[in-house]
């Protein structure tokens, strides 16, 4: 098992970052594209609504009172 990790040491300049710091930095790269990101987010939201709308509609229609 030792062989698996042979030679895989960190470089001397490697450092550990918290997930929070990494995410903060990553978000910084997206800041110039805030409008596009919001547009994509809106499309995702609308896509989700449209995607879930079908089962909801079908489910609601299936619970209409039966024909007398």
């Amino acid at each position, binding site marked *: 098992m030792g*062989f*698996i*990790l*042979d*030679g*895989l*040491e*960190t*470089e*001397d*300049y*490697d*450092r*550990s*970052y918290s*997930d929070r710091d*990494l995410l903060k*930095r*990553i978000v910084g*790269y*997206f800041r*110039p*594209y805030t409008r*596009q*990101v919001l*547009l*994509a*987010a809106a*499309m*995702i*939201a*609308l*896509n*989700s*609504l*449209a*995607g*879930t*709308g*079908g*089962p*909801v*509609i*079908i*489910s609601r*229609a299936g*619970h*209409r009172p039966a*024909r007398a």
Partner: protein
Amino acid sequence: MRDPAVPHILLLATGVLLLGVAAWGFNFVHQYVGARVIGNVVLKLREDVFDATIAHDLSFYDEHPSGKIVSRVTSDTQDFSDVVSLTVNLFSQILLVAIMSLWLFSIDWRLTLLLYGMSPVAVIIALSFRRIARRVTQNARRVTAKINAQIQESVSGIMIAKSFRQEQAIYTTFDANNRQGFHVGIRRGIVLNSIFPIISIASGVSMGALVYLGGLATLDGHVSPGNWYLFMQAVGFFWWPMLNIASFWSQFQDGLSASERVFALIDAEPKVVQTASEPVERLHGEIAFRHVRLTYTDKEIVLPDFSLTIRPKETVALVGHTGAGKSSIARLIARFYEFQGGEILVDGRDIRRLDLRAYRQHIGIVPQEPFLFSGTVAENIRYGKPDATDDDVREAAMHIGGGDWLADLPDGLDTDVGERGANLSMGQRQLAALARVLLKDPAIFILDEATASVDPFTETQIQEGLETIMADRTAIVIAHRLSTVKHADRIIVMREGEIIEEGTHDSLMAQGGHYAELYNTYFRHQSLAYIENARDLLERAVQ
């Protein structure tokens, strides 16, 4: 008679169709915009990491294999985009969970609260994978970098490998690394892919509990059978995105591992640090070392206490055995390495306070093995002065050895030099490198003379080129040629980082010290007198 439910069914079908088309449209826009944003972000990140990489000093490149650095700039930045894709996917999953929650609440709020009570289990399981997921993904990246570094080195040294018939050896090394990559990749896959089944088990237990408790609630009359049935149908739509969210965090670690490696390279602190950024106008070329101490590691002291003053336009030849510290002095002048004590003054100014880019504009360097970039001879000559005209380039080339060397090139200045100048001979590379320096017209010229021999005609051209360059500027030469040493204004003899003798060739020979010994070892066989003497001896032996 037509069934009155038919129009409703048609309306339902039309509504579902329109929703499907709309979903397709929204998804297309999302994918298009998302791809462009991610592309731009990865572009910027690569620019930042490459910018940081080339800003590092030479000691950084001595200590870290270039293949591993390349892996971070290329592979890890590309994998960074996976972080973003996962994040976008997460957002859509959260929305789905929110929408499903509203629907479930609308069916029965008690059962929905019960469902929420069981959801954290999946989250806890996923979060517990975080540390191991980060570790296995980091190892996977390191092994990729290791493989890239070994491949790069093998390809660069393929001529040496073939000349020593070591192809099998380098293949064996590659095979071992490749197998290591395989095993590490398997571990990574097992860890990341085991998250989903484990969370699925938790969701299955939760579903069972809902069926049981929901059934009891129905028997007690708290929930109608219809609602209970509808709820169980809907909960499946809730769990799928919930599972994705729960497993997301651990898979996200792969992308964070890539980000961590990239940011570490960007944040790596350079060892050569300027304390100011003073502008540098034309230099006179006076260089003064005052009690300079240089160590590469704690145990390797290269220059313990070095002092030397070089006058403007003086040609100084540094001689000594390997490891004497000659190259280190040249590198310190170029500010490629940081020294730990003393000071270096250029025209009386502390070298640490100068604007480094402006300072290096006044330095011209020709290393032992001149490096040419892919492109033409003209492009390489123009490298140090991009705004030079074609006439300037031609003039610089003509001033080196009379320009005769251009006639030997298949397309003259337009000759393609190949990768690292592989299409040119060593002598031609040296001549091109000298023309490059001459065009730059630096105040300080640093030459690490090649030890490889060239034909006598090329040797003459190189010597003429050197004389042209050294005529009107300060020159520091790590000398391996007798002619260079003899023409120097001053010879500095070094041993173990200290100056042990200095003077002209004749004065040092008269002293009969270390220089005289070096002369007999390295230089005497280059002298005309030696060659003629050897020829006489040979002729007598034949007779």
